[in-house]
């Protein structure tokens, strides 16, 4: 594994709206290819393991899995730094991992343990890592878009020379507040990049049943946009690099990532009533983001089939070990119920269900 440059062509050309598309030739290296492969395989394994933990009733409530969409998280990280911010909706496990979060924090949070990235108080939808500019993890569809534009506002206000990637799905793409925030981002030239992860279904509603125009990269009207093959990590990387340069110089831009989720919307959705099994297996066979990287690794003689198999085994063990460790991690202390309500609680009394029995002075 070395850093000798390799040039890789994107699978498809970019389709641009109000801008000249970037080149299809993407700079990479053997090292990057292997890292892409390993990280995506780790993300996939982590999500499959979360599925099992959910079915074993060790994860409660909502759980939205990212398998199929890994190339978006991986390609985006490859183009940016930790000074650049990311904010997303509830499908947030892999973006957290991409920002440097650990498997132990992920599984602990999913199982409501005290080592979780939100100490067990957030759950699947509320992962954060502020030290590397990951702002969550939001449960209200579309609300993260103005929030992300606000982070971009702070970056410009503080002259940080950084940008914010604010992620949303094709379902949220129709939310009114998205257009309100985009208008302000464009008026004030904010370094905001709206990333529409178009996985083609908002829950069970196909994009064409929810959007009069499903060309999400063009939905910004006066804001430039780019349609990207979101199953191709190198296309994503190229688009995000292009978008970052654009945003710092000219203001907001929309990236529509054409992607696909293999799982249903959440754990209660088998994902098969509104789409055919053939459609899902077709995407797996023809567009799978990990298979694409695997082919590149093999064709460039960077690793052998056996070496990749060994890597997968290693990943499997890494995930299993993290789960075992998280299972051993205790639940939060009962006293944590009353922490973090405020930064400054002034010692105000707060109450449990029976206020004569349980009360606390807020720290």
């Amino acid at each position, binding site marked *: 594994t070395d850093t000798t440059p390799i040039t890789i062509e994107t699978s498809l050309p970019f389709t641009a709206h109000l801008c000249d598309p970037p080149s299809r030739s993407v700079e990479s290296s053997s090292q990057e290819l292997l890292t892409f492969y390993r990280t995506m395989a780790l993300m996939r394994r982590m999500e499959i393991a979360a599925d099992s933990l959910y079915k074993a009733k060790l994860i409660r409530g909502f759980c939205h899995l990212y398998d199929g969409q890994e190339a978006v998280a991986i390609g985006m990280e490859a183009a940016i730094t930790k000074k650049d911010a990311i*904010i997303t909706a509830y499908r947030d496990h892999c973006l957290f991992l991409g920002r440097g979060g650990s498997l132990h924090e992920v599984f602990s949070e999913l199982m409501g343990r005290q080592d979780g990235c939100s100490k067990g108080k957030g759950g699947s939808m509320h992962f954060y890592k502020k030290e590397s500019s990951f702002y969550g993890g939001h449960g209200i569809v579309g609300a993260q878009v103005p929030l992300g*534009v606000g982070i971009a506002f702070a970056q410009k206000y503080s002259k940080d020379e950084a940008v914010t990637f604010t992620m949303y799905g094709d379902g949220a793409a129709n939310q009114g507040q998205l257009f309100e925030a985009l208008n302000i981002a464009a008026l004030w030239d904010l370094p905001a990049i709206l990333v529409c992860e178009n996985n083609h279904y908002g829950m069970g509603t196909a994009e064409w049943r929810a959007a009069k125009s499903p060309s999400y990269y063009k939905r910004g009207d006066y804001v430039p946009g780019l349609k990207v093959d979101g199953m191709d990590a190198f296309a994503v990387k190229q688009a995000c690099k292009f978008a970052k340069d654009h945003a710092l110089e000219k203001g907001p831009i929309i990236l529509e990532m054409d992607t696909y989720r293999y799982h249903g919307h959440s754990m209660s959705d088998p994902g098969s009533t509104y789409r055919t099994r053939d459609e899902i297996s077709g995407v797996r066979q023809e567009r799978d983001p990990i298979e694409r990287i695997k082919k590149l690794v093999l064709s460039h003689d960077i690793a052998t089939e056996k070496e990749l198999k060994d890597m997968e085994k290693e990943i499997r063990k890494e995930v299993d070990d993290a789960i075992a460790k998280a299972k051993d991690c205790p639940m939060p202390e009962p006293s944590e119920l009353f922490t973090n309500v405020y930064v400054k609680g002034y010692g105000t009394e707060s109450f449990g269900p029976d206020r004569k029995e349980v009360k606390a002075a807020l720290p």
Partner: protein
Amino acid sequence: KEMTVRDALNSAIDEEMSADPKVFVMGEEVGQYQGAYKITKGLLEKYGPERVYDTPITEAGFTGIGVGAAYAGLKPVVEFMTFNFSMQAIDHIINSAAKSNYMSAGQINVPIVFRGPNGAAAGVGAQHSQCYAAWYASVPGLKVLTPYSAEDARGLLKAAIRDPDPVVFLENELLYGESFPISEEALDSSFCLPIGKAKIEREGKDVTITTFSKMVGFALKAAEKLAEEGISAEVINLRSIRPLDRATINASVRKTSRLVTVEEGFPQHGVCAEICASVVEESFSYLDAPVERIAGADVPMPYAANLERLALPQVEDIVRAAKRACYRSK
């Protein structure tokens, strides 16, 4: 020395902007227009368009942007032209601002102030005349402040801007032009009032009257009338609805044994109802009379002047209730 509530609010924002470059102002008409109610007058000239932002009329969008900016460490002061319009953005106030510090176990705090006129003005009808104190005060994670006087306005707004948590700051349009005596201490740029502490505006021994915002003035007038009839009323200006100063309220009720709660908002599930519950829970055996509740009528605000007057608490309502509590009514 006297000062209007408008000047008190304006000077508080001005001083905090001057003290901390992270403080900025955004909202509809806050800049070139000088504020729909002139609270932000002169700030654009003094601090420039990089600190004072005129927004489009899109509350959900700009409120979300304000909250996002606070996530990233800025200290936005977001003006709602009136709190009625905050309903367009309530999701960001509750779900994005109030809950983030908790959900992130303290990683993402939200130092933001949402401010503007709240409650009934005069003759503006149902959609522009609602009090949101009870709405916002029901949510853990928010702090809700309700100034009455110029001193309150200065001290509480400065405290709100310096606070690391989200604060809903409910002003009253009809108080903006009112002048109040103000001390040298309250005019000092370091002046700040504690959040979560009520103020006893007038001491008394026969009956406690709790209220906030414009109704404090009404309660003080009622107390004067009651004094003429030999009833000594203690008037508590709540100042902070969340945290609620239960200790001060209960200590007063334990002293007077009688309570009249007053608010302009709707009666059901209101601030009065919460205070009543707190007193029943903590000081039941001290009560010598049923708790009295004076609130806005349980109807949408009508336009006609006579009906509007009937829909809002008046001084005579407070006097009557206090006398009832003291068994002095006919």
